[in-house]
């Protein structure tokens, strides 16, 4: 493989962004060199967070949500491209991957173990559906007050890809960007060996259930263990099906590797949303994956 460059050392830079633990790992000749490279990558992650977080009051997403039922909001090139991508994902998943699903959080509060009434879910139905959103003349309109969009479905993955691109532009050829488990790789370790990435056990989250060798491309995981509550022995996780209004149940975790993190992330989320059909879907993509169903059975393609 690539010849080992002994003058390179590996540096790790943990940081917090998007409400999660993140990390940039890269090989450089000195810590100072590494630090300046990492700074640019972090800046890109922060830029995306500030622009697209629904928790930040002057983000474009907040602006779009505040104008729901009121007025169109003009989009810059990047935002327009992200919405176009959301449209394609919505179409490719038969409406399951829907960035307007966030409105369901008005019914599902994962802090208390409580099921929403069917009336409440029924009332929310009108606020759901990307097909209702108008995208015209570089303007987005949410037609109904209370509708909201949320780029959480692929924002972190997009940021990982963009940060990795920044690092690549700096000449980094060994390392990776890890944004709370959504990862993009920039080349093998300086020794030429792959990075060995542990996949969390979805039931004992301090345990690793598998280790994947990674050198390039993206790795993303969706699981039912990030935010959930249990009631009468049934787990209700934060991945919500916009067509039923209910959490998905079939998969505990789905990890996918693909040529870009954003593709890996959307593929794993779609598989979660497709429930039993997710396996055939994963196999049909041709991407490598590791999936564990609700009975603990492991499915792998690599």
């Amino acid at each position, binding site marked *: *493989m*690539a010849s080992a460059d002994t003058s390179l050392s590996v540096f790790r830079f943990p940081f917090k962004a998007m409400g999660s633990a993140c990390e940039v790992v890269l090989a450089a000749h000195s810590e100072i060199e590494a630090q300046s490279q990492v700074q640019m990558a972090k800046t890109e992650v922060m830029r995306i967070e500030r622009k697209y977080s629904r928790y930040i009051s002057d983000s474009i997403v907040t602006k779009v949500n505040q104008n729901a039922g009121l007025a169109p909001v003009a989009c810059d*090139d*990047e935002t327009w*491209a*992200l919405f*176009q*991508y959301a449209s*394609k*994902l919505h179409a*490719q998943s038969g409406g399951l991957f829907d960035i307007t699903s966030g409105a369901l959080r008005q019914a599902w509060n994962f802090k208390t173990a409580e099921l929403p009434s069917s009336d409440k879910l029924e009332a929310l139905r009108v606020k759901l559906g990307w097909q209702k959103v108008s995208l015209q003349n570089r303007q987005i309109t949410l037609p109904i007050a209370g509708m909201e969009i949320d780029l959480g479905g692929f924002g972190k993955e*997009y940021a990982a*890809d*963009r940060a990795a*691109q920044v690092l*690549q532009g700096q000449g980094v050829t060994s390392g990776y960007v890890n944004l709370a488990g959504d990862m993009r*790789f920039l080349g093998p370790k300086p020794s030429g060996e792959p990075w060995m990435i542990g996949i969390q056990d979805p039931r004992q989250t301090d345990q690793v259930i598998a280790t994947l060798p990674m*050198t*390039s*491309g*993206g790795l993303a995981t969706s699981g039912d263990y990030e935010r959930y509550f249990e009631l009468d022995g049934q787990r209700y996780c934060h991945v919500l099906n916009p067509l039923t209004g209910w959490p998905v149940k079939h998969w505990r975790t789905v990890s996918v590797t*693909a*040529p*870009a993190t*954003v*593709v890996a992330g*959307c*593929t794993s989320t779609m598989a979660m949303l497709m429930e039993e059909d997710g396996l055939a*879907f994963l*196999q*049909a*993509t*041709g*991407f490598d994956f590791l999936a564990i169903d609700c009975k603990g059975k492991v499915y792998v*393609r*690599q």
Partner: protein
Amino acid sequence: MVHRSAEVAVAAIKQNFNLPELGIALLGAAMSLPCIMLDAQAETAPEKGTLSFKYLNYKERQQVTGQAGNSSGWTDSQSGASAYDDRVRVKATASSVLLPLNSDWSLSGTLVTDSVSGASPAYHTQALSGLKDFRRAMDTSLTRYLPNGKLALGLGYSGENDYISRAVSLLATQASEDKNTTWTAGVGFQRDLINPANQMVVGEKKRGADWLLGVTQVVSMNDIVQFNLGYYNGRGYFSDPYKIYDERPKRREHQTFQARWNHHFSELSGTSRLAYRYYTDTWGIRSHTLDTEWVQRLGSDWRITPQLRLYSQNAARFFVEVDPRIAPFPPSPLPNALHFSEDQRLSAFGAITLGLKVTRQLSLDTSMDVKVEQYGQKAAWKFTGAGSQGLAPFYARSIQVGFTHSF
């Protein structure tokens, strides 16, 4: 530019990894994102082994134009009784195995057996003489995978009663850092030993060497083009000992130029493959081949590939044309001619091949395919000019059944 390189990478992935339609669609959707680059991974040794088996049944026929010479032995051609005569029949099997040794090396091997029977003309399309032969061929290749390329060493052996051939080859590919350009260079050497059953000649030899240079370029998300240049230089016994009046030059060189263009139509889930090949040799033959294929996916399990190939060549400089005044008897070569041949394969003709291949994916690891081809050859089908006169049209059909399993 960055956006474009992402598009290009998808085609590279399509090319290198043959991702199914859904994987391509998911990658394609991400292409609308600004500055998203995709990592096309370097080709590594396959993780799975592959076993494949093919059976081929090939049968030629040619219109009977009259009866001349004596049909020897067991051919049962009847004068004037039927419009067509069977010519050569081939039944062949090929078994291949590909074994990954580790992440850097793989080993592959193929064993071919074929039995040939039937009859072939001793000159032009006349004077059938029977033939029966059994051929066994094997080749093996060892491949080393490098960060951006691979190196393959091949050894081959083919043996039948009257012809033994040994070959060695080396093929190298190197991809650019972005995997959009792949260079190929290859060299091969062959040594043949010829001992015909009729002992026209004994222990004749032929040696050849060929070189290949190629470049494959991903031009857009849906387009890949490829250019290849080939050169062959051979010395030795090129004549056909079973034909009468066949004395060919002891030397042959040929050059080929080939261009290919594959275009993927996402909305149709289909791919068009166009190829053109130009061939020229020191015997004065120039040929053009136009090949078109359409690969249509139907659902996730079926693939249907219709094919049309058009071919045209002019005659070798020393080809002796049919003489209508004495036909169907063989014309004598000019008294001072050094080289001469009345082999119809060296005449001027055109040919059309129609093919259809159906592939069915039986499971993730297993697939089956059936391919049917019909070949026709006529002087009148030459692209320009009339072609060599007095030769009966020639037809062949082949049926191939294949089975591939990864493990």
